Structure formats: structure tokens, C-alpha cells
């Protein structure tokens, strides 16, 4: 009797909620929609159901369910949530100074899901992000792909239900001057490459032992989390995100990836314009950055705004990243606009902050375009995405509004101000 009453209460409470969720259809009507996949739609309709896109198209072509909550978005522009393939938000860390190579270190074990920096990214329209450890190591650790959901614990933000089973991040590597150092660190570029090759040769042997064991626990090598991550790299399940600037360092990164057959994304790629054809030829994606001026370090003296158009013309997959705090997540769209300014096509520049980056993170089936079946991650803009005068008015993640500029509590993350950013990356000054 008592138990059945509890059951009754349980269902009474649960059922209306569940049905409400099922019928929770949201429609955005009248906006100019930039789906990235396909032509821009002048007066479009976007239909959201259960956190997914259930339809997108012309007002005439898309039927609106009668139960739907219809939001008039006339005069606005809607595009996919931005994907940032290289960021340091979340106040995480990475490997320490004990070694130059830390394939076992995971940044997901160090991120603060309550960090203000996630609000900053949402204010910039970013909904998916590759959070990486730094570039002061040859291999500073495993990166993590995050969805900027309302999260209490880091698990709430992952792209996977179980990070122990499913790969949902990359491996951060760096070459050039940043990883050069004393003690356990290489002193030269050639030594850097030798140390990386050494480790991948070991990883290959580790993988071969596992294959030979063929499931026999007696023959299995001792578990080694670092080696396991490198085997994921060798098997193409985990992408290497390689910080690199100078043209010869870019080619070295490509050479090593070809020797061991791993999947590579080049990051920063300051001198991409010198080797754009080689990058395209190798089929390696380039994740580049906009710096307002060159210099600040020897390797960035020759960086050019024209990296974007040069890579586009060469036929390489090219995207922009923030490297937040090097550039600011709040103005990530500015990078795409600077691409156009330097000669990129509008389409490729917009892809360079959305789908191109999703492809570099193996999440293009979930995000990066507005297409039926994809996650309902999108931004509502006050105008054209490539204009300085345009503001991101709302950022939605999986059908939930995560940023609303009309709410003063949210707007402050877009503008900054007193006591807004309390937990940023200044902690390493201490």
C-alpha cells in the first residue's frame, strides 16, 4: 500500500515532466539562417526537439508543429554554435616539469567546470571546445572535447558518457622553441623529434604486444595509461594536436605523423603561407590563429593574416582557434572576419569557426552545421556574423539557452567589468 503510493507519486511527478520534454518543440522563425551546410536562407525556420535539430529550411518548406513554442527571430541571424579547436579556458593544467612527454596526463582531471571562462566562451558564441594543456612540452597531455552545457561536474560537459571507454579528446604536442629546455627537456629541434620518435616506437611495440596477446591476459603487457593513449593515436582514434609555428617545424610535424601513421592537426601554423601547398598535399588540417601584429617571439615574426586564404587556395582544411587567453573567446567571430579581410571566401571563413573545426575533433556528426539530426547548438546574432557591429544575442547548447545578452547577468560576460572574471589564468603568476 505504502509502496504503491510512492510509485503513484513517482509516476505522477515524472510523467508530466517526461511528456513535456517530448513535446518540447521550439521553433525559431523569420531569421536569416546560415546553416553552413548549404546556402544561406533569407527567411528561415529552425525546429528544435529534445536538444536536436529536427528541421531547418525555408519558411515555406518547413511545417511548424501546432504544439511548438514559436519564437519570432525576424531581423536576426542564426548560425551554428562556434567550435573552438584550441583553447585554455577552464583553468586546467597539464604535464609538469618532470618530463617533456606526458601522454598519460589528462586535462579533464584538472578542469574547473564552474570557471567563469566558460561563460566568456558562451558570450562569444562558442558551444564546443577542445581544451588543451600548454605548449611547454613535446607532449603535454591529453586534451578534452567539451560541450558548454550547464555543468556541475566535468562529466556533464563531455562528448562521451564514459571517457574510460570512448576517446573524446586529442593529444597535445608541440615542437619548435616552446618545449626546448633544461634537464628532462630537449635542447634542440632534432633532439625534440628524436624523443618523440623514440616514444612512438615504444608505443608501436606496446601495441604489437597487445595484438600478439590476442586477448590472453597472461600475455598482455603491464597496463600503461600513457602507452594506451599513444596506441589510440596510432590506431587513429585520438588526434594529435600539434603546436607549431616555423615552416620547417610544420614539415617536421607532418614527417613524424607520416612515419607513424597518426592523424594530425597543425596548430597556430604561423608560417603556413610558406608551406601551404605541402600542408594541403599531406592532407593535414591547419588550425590557425589571428594575431593582430607579428612578433613577440622569434617563431611568430613571420605570421601573416593571409594564412587563411593561402591555405584555402591550396585546398587544405583550414580553421581558426582562439588559443584563449591569447585571443579572446568573446570575439572569436572576428577571426573569421579577418580571414575574409585577408582574402578568404565567406563560406570557408564561416566554416573555419564551425564545421572545419568539428572535423578536426571528430565531432562533425554532432556539431558544426545546422542540419537535421545534429545537436541543437546555435547562436542568434543581431546582424551579419562578419561585422564588428554584430553582437551575439543568444547562445544555445542542445536546445537550452546558455547565454542571453538581454540579461544583464549574462551581458557582463560579453563586456567584462568589475568582478566579472574572477578565476582566469592569472593563477600561474603566484
Amino acid at each position, binding site marked *: 500500500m505504502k509502496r504503491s503510493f510512492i510509485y503513484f507519486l513517482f509516476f505522477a511527478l515524472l510523467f508530466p515532466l517526461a511528456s513535456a520534454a517530448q513535446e518540447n518543440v521550439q521553433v525559431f522563425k523569420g531569421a536569416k539562417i546560415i546553416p553552413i551546410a548549404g546556402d544561406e536562407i533569407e527567411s528561415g525556420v529552425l525546429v528544435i526537439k529534445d536538444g536536436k535539430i529536427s528541421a531547418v529550411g525555408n519558411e515555406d518548406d518547413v511545417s511548424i508543429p501546432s504544439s511548438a513554442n514559436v519564437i519570432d527571430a525576424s531581423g536576426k541571424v542564426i548560425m551554428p554554435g562556434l567550435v573552438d579547436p584550441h583553447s585554455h579556458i577552464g583553468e586546467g593544467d597539464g604535464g609538469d616539469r618532470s618530463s617533456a612527454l606526458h601522454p598519460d596526463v589528462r586535462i579533464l582531471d584538472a578542469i574547473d567546470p564552474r570557471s567563469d571562462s566558460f561563460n566568456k566562451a558562451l558570450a562569444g558564441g562558442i558551444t564546443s571546445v577542445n581544451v588543451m594543456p600548454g605548449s611547454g612540452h613535446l607532449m603535454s597531455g591529453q586534451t578534452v572535447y567539451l560541450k558548454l552545457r550547464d555543468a556541475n561536474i566535468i562529466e556533464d560537459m563531455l562528448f562521451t558518457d564514459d571517457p574510460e571507454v570512448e576517446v573524446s579528446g586529442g593529444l597535445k604536442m608541440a615542437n619548435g622553441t616552446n618545449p626546448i629546455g633544461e634537464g628532462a627537456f630537449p635542447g634542440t629541434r632534432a633532439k625534440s623529434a628524436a624523443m618523440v620518435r623514440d616514444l612512438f616506437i615504444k608505443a608501436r611495440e606496446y601495441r604489437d604486444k597487445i595484438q600478439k596477446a590476442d586477448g590472453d591476459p597472461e600475455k598482455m603487457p603491464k597496463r600503461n595509461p600513457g602507452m594506451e593513449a599513444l596506441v589510440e593515436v596510432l590506431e587513429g582514434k585520438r588526434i594529435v594536436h600539434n603546436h607549431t609555428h616555423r615552416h620547417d617545424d610544420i614539415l617536421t610535424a607532418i614527417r613524424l605523423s607520416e612515419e607513424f601513421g597518426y592523424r594530425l592537426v597543425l596548430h597556430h601554423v604561423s608560417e603556413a603561407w610558406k608551406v601551404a601547398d605541402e600542408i594541403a598535399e599531406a592532407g593535414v588540417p591547419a588550425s590557425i590563429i589571428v*594575431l*593582430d*601584429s*607579428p*612578433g*613577440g*617571439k*622569434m617563431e*611568430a*615574426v613571420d605570421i601573416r593574416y593571409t594564412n587563411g586564404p593561402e591555405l584555402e587556395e591550396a585546398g587544405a582544411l583550414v580553421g581558426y582557434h582562439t588559443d584563449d*587567453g*591569447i585571443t*579572446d573567446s*568573446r*570575439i572569436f567571430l*572576428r577571426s573569421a*572576419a*579577418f580571414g*575574409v*579581410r585577408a582574402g578568404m571566401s565567406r563560406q570557408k571563413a564561416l566554416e573555419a569557426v564551425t564545421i572545419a573545426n568539428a572535423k578536426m575533433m571528430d565531432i562533425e556528426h554532432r556539431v558544426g552545421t545546422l542540419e537535421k539530426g545534429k545537436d541543437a547548438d546555435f547562436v542568434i546574432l543581431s546582424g551579419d556574423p*562578419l*561585422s*564588428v*557591429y554584430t*553582437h551575439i544575442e543568444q547562445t544555445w547548447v542542445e536546445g537550452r539557452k546558455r547565454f542571453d545578452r538581454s540579461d544583464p547577468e549574462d551581458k557582463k560576460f*560579453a*563586456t*567584462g*567589468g*568589475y*568582478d*566579472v*572574471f*574572477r578565476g*582566469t*589564468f*592569472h593563477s600561474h*603568476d603566484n
Partner: protein
Amino acid sequence: MNLSYMNILKSTLAILAVLLIAPFSAEAQVAVKAQTVYTMDGQTLSNGVVLVKDGKIERVGTASQISIPDSYTVYEAAVVSPGLVDARTVVGLAGIYNQDSDQDQLETSNAIQPQLRAIDAYNAREELVAFVMNKGVTTLHTGHGPGALASGQTMIAKTGYHTVEEAVVDTTAMIAMTLGSGVSRNFKSPGTRAKGMAMLRQKFIDAKEYAEKRNSENSPSMDLEMEALADVLAGKVTALITAQKANDIMTALRLKEEFNFNMVLDGAAEAYLVLDEIKEAGIPVIVHPTMVRTYGDTQNASFETAGKLHKAGIPFAFQSGYEGYVPKTRIILFEAAIAVANGLPKEAALQALTLDAAKILGIDERVGSLSAGKDADLVLYDGDPFEYTTHVTGVIVDGRVVKGD
């Protein structure tokens, strides 16, 4: 090689040189036509013309008012503005490579060294000078950076020249001073804000006494440090005080009040908390780059500060500031653009980039507006100067086309 061949070679080279250099070099007479001419001299002209003769602005008016003489080389643009004035930078002292050998903006042997002259360190051929010039900057207020209680002097220079002597407009514009947490990172002492102020006050008291004695019969021997501070106390040189946090801004105002010197406030990330106090003190502000990183003393910086300064009626200008890493310098046009997107009216931003900056630096007789008789410093754009996708298509410094198509 025989002599006649040499001569032919020489004259060929000379012709080649003229052909190559001509588009970028001295043209005594230039006319610039644009759909929009922001004169900053009272009006914005549609279909305007600016005539330039012998390095100066000859005449400004509409196309119907001005007929361009045949001998003038004509340039066209969508928009023209006066040359931009970067009101606080370190380019020329802080080089592109960021190696010890090209970083002269901060001397760390002593926290107070107002005697260090910017002209002794300015590299007119520094690549970053050319870089900012190509983004519209024709006048730089550059010199010693933030980071010391008194890091040294600043100077005013034109871009587009090869030596400091050609470039210089004012050899000694201001003394750069800094309050806040940054100083203690560069020096053992001061280790605290309060100690820093105590040290500065003592130096100003010493300088006051020194100045009095120098005018007496028992004049002490000349002391460069004391001379520099005495010039500040005498109102000959302005104190440029970098202060980001509201408490540091108030400390700067207190110091000015005590010693009654001319002052310009630099940075002022939390200016929006003390607008009334800044206004009442009558202090102009060279506001931090809009996109300054929000950590350390600039943690509370806002994109809206320039707009708020404008609304409060406080004179202000834009700066590229000092950058310790990448990018090695900022671009004031880009910094102003973000301010315009966050509440600053477009015309007010242009004025802050030109005439108001010139006024704060005391050079508005020469630069800052397109007015007959002023230096012919112009920037040509292919669209709205602040729009992300607009290019600077031409730059003219003292009548010379230093960047052109």
C-alpha cells in the same frame, strides 16, 4: 667593367630607383578624393577633396568646391581620416623579436629613472613601426613602458622615417610612471603599493628642494634624475601615470594633488568606478587597449570603458600599449573598433584616434585634423574604418605617400 658601361648602369639604376620609389616617396602635390572625408575640423564631407602641398594640408572641401590642378597626383578612397595618433605605445623601443637585444622599454636596475630619454633608444626602422603605420598610425607617442615607478621619458614621433632625428616631433613628451601590482614584479623594492608611493613622494620632495637650490647661489651639481622630476614639477613635462585599478587611479590623483603637476592617466581599466573623480580632477585618459587581457591589474577591464569615458565628458585617446608576448603590438584602429561596437559613437572614436589624442599630447597645432596648414597626415580606407573587413589602402605622412596601392 669599363667606365661608360658603369655610367649606363648607374643611370639605369637611377631611373629604376625613381620608378620604384616614386609611388611611395615625396610628391609635393597630392590630391585625395573620397566619398566620405572625416575632417575632425567641424564637419564630415561627402565627396570631399583634400589638397596637399609641400607636406602640409593646402585645402579641404567638397568636389564641387575644389578643382584639382593637373599637376597633382590623385588618390581615391571610400573614406579618408586624419592620420591616427597612437597615444601610448612602446614600438621603436620594444622590438618585434622580443629578445633581450631589442627590448629597451624597461630598465630594471632602479625603480625610479625619469632621466632615461626615449630618443636615445628609439629605432625608427623597427619593423613594428612600419607595421602600425600600415594600419593608419602616422604619429606615435612612444617611449618607456609601464612597469617601474618612473621608467623614463616618452617622445612623439612620426612614422615613415628612417632616423629618430627626422621622425621626432617632441623629444620629451612625458615621464612614464606606474602604480599597481606590476611594479613589484620587476623590482625587489618597492614590494608593496604603499612603499612605492613613499618612494615616489620622497623623490618629488627631493626634486623640489633640488630645483630651489639650483636657482640659488649654492647650486648643487647637475643631477639628471632630479632635473627630469623638476621639469615635471615646473609643468614643463607631463606625468603619464599608468594605473589600472580604481584604488591606484585614486592614488595617482592624490599624488598629482600633492605636487600639483600636469598629469595624464594611462590604462585606467577600472575608470568606470571613479568617473566623477577623474572628471573633477580634469585629467585626460589614454585608455587601455579595448581588447586588453582580463587578468592581473586589468582583470576588471571592460569593452565599454571608452564609451563611458565619452559619455562622462572625459577627454580620452586610444593606445596600443605594451605587450610582453604575442601580438607584440596592438593596433589602435582595431581597439577603437571594439569600443565602437560596445557603446562608443563612431565619430567620437575617430576623434579620440586623431584630434583628441593630439590635444592630450599637445600637438594639435600640427596634427589631428584635416585643416589647412596642418601636417598632411592622412589615412585612406576602402570602407567604414572600423569594420572588420575594411582595409587601410593608403597612408600619407607629411605629404609623402608611405603606403599606397
